[in-house]
């Protein structure tokens, strides 16, 4: 079965410190992994994706994510957090095996709080 886990409901970080939001996945075949961010009262916005190639993927707003096949992880990182990064973050995987990649399976989300 295809699944995504975000083990932390909430992450607290001080502004200027590095941040990590964790994600692990379980898929059959090659994983197609995504990170989205949801700001209050707004829809989800795409941050970055891993399809193939370099394990370190760079995305919007200074975020990056590292694909680790052996650990089946795709953690989201940023070297220096901003207060404006405070939001709800979702990791997602495309279900290629069953739906040809149309169905997206989202994690439960991790709320990031960045303190000034």
């Amino acid at each position, binding site marked *: 079965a295809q699944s995504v886990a975000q083990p932390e409901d909430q992450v607290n970080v001080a502004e200027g410190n590095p941040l990590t939001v964790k994600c692990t996945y379980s898929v059959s075949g090659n994983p*197609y992994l*995504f990170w*989205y961010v949801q700001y209050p*009262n*707004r*829809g*989800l*916005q*795409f941050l970055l*994706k891993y*399809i193939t190639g370099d394990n370190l993927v760079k995305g919007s707003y200074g975020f990056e994510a590292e694909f680790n096949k052996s650990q089946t992880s795709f953690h989201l990182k940023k070297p220096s957090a901003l207060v404006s990064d405070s939001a709800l973050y*979702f990791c997602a995987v*495309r279900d*290629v095996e069953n*739906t*040809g*990649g*149309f*169905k*997206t*399976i*989202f*994690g*439960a*989300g991790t709320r990031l709080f960045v303190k000034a």
Partner: protein
Amino acid sequence: GAGVSQSPSNKVTEKGKDVELRCDPISGHTALYWYRQSLGQGLEFLIYFQGNSAPDKSGLPSDRFSAERTGGSVSTLTIQRTQQEDSAVYLCASSELAGPYNEQFFGPGTRLTVL
């Protein structure tokens, strides 16, 4: 260009009533998706369209839920005989091409409250 739009932004209805939620995808996007986001929970996949067809309807929670897409553009999600557990934010997304590589662009959602 314009993003994905959804209407209404908020809908309050009484239990047992039918509701229609509308999604206007980004022009030219062939794929369209519906999700449900319940309070304190993640996103639940409901259905996707490739063009006007919906190959997989298994994500719809019950037979009270239906969706259609006409002209390869606008989509309507209909919930019949609404129940209180249907209260959630319903999100629509579209992507340029079909397939697993393409990021989805989300609308702002419709917040449905069933009294």
